[in-house]
């Protein structure tokens, strides 16, 4: 199983303007990160980017976990990040482990997570041109359908994406649910998807 998550760094600073200084910043970090993660953040060259790198790892892993257990929760601290080297890491939730790979650029951070070490998902992160919030998901979905139609050697019109009640998307071919796992993400000017 797979999950992915994108953070538009510019958007992240607009979204929570109160958070990036003083006590509020500390409180924000305390709600989300373990002691070890906070140390890792404080010791990093760019605190802001490291926060969003760890956040995108947690989000990507959470998307697999919620798919597995079909129960939504909000407790980012329970998802413990470990960075192996540069852009590879692991997220542990209770006794479960998820493996992550991240792309870090000046403008965005994009992470894919897998439930097994050897899964290589098809993934893409792209820039949305002037899309209002309402249409971001649509744009991402169309990109998925294009890619999936090639993979399945089927016309786009035969394909569909539907979300279940926990918000997890599934792929359908000629009305029949497919086993492939799909994760869609969008934030600010970026969207991404991972397929497996």
């Amino acid at each position, binding site marked *: 199983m797979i999950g992915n998550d994108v953070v538009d760094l510019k958007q*992240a600073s607009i*979204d*929570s303007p*109160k*958070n990036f200084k003083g006590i*509020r910043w500390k*409180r*924000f970090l305390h*709600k*989300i990160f373990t002691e070890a993660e906070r140390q890792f953040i404080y010791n990093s060259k760019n605190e802001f980017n490291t926060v969003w790198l760890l*956040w995108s790892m947690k*989000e990507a892993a959470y998307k697999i976990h919620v798919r597995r257990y079909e129960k*939504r*929760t*909000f*407790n*980012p*601290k*329970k998802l413990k990040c470990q960075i192996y080297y540069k852009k590879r890491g692991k997220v542990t939730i209770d006794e479960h482990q998820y493996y992550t790979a991240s792309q870090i650029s000046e403008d965005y951070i994009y992470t894919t997570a897998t439930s097994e070490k050897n899964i290589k998902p098809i993934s893409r992160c792209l820039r949305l041109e002037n899309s209002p*919030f309402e249409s971001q998901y649509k744009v991402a979905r169309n990109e998925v359908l294009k890619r999936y139609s090639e993979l399945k050697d089927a016309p786009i019109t035969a394909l569909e994406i539907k979300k279940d009640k926990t*918000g997890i998307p599934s792929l359908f071919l000629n009305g029949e649910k497919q086993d492939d796992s799909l994760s869609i993400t969008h*934030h600010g000017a970026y969207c991404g998807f991972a397929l497996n």
Partner: protein
Amino acid sequence: MSKDELIVKLKQIVAPYIQDEEAFKNLSEDTDFINDLKINSANLVDVVLDVEDEFDIRIENDDMEKMLSVKAVIEIINEKLAVK
């Protein structure tokens, strides 16, 4: 505090973070922060911090875990206010 008063206060708190105006207008006890109001999950942390400040309470991570809907937040606020 009555449920309606709490909903009014909560509505002010979540206003800066919502991405679905229609769902915000119709905000009720059954409103889900992520599915209905389309609040992004990082902003959910802001909601938690703002609730702490507004009601002068401390929300532990085990409480935060449930804070996905208006109803759940109201329950937690009331529990915390009761033991203050």
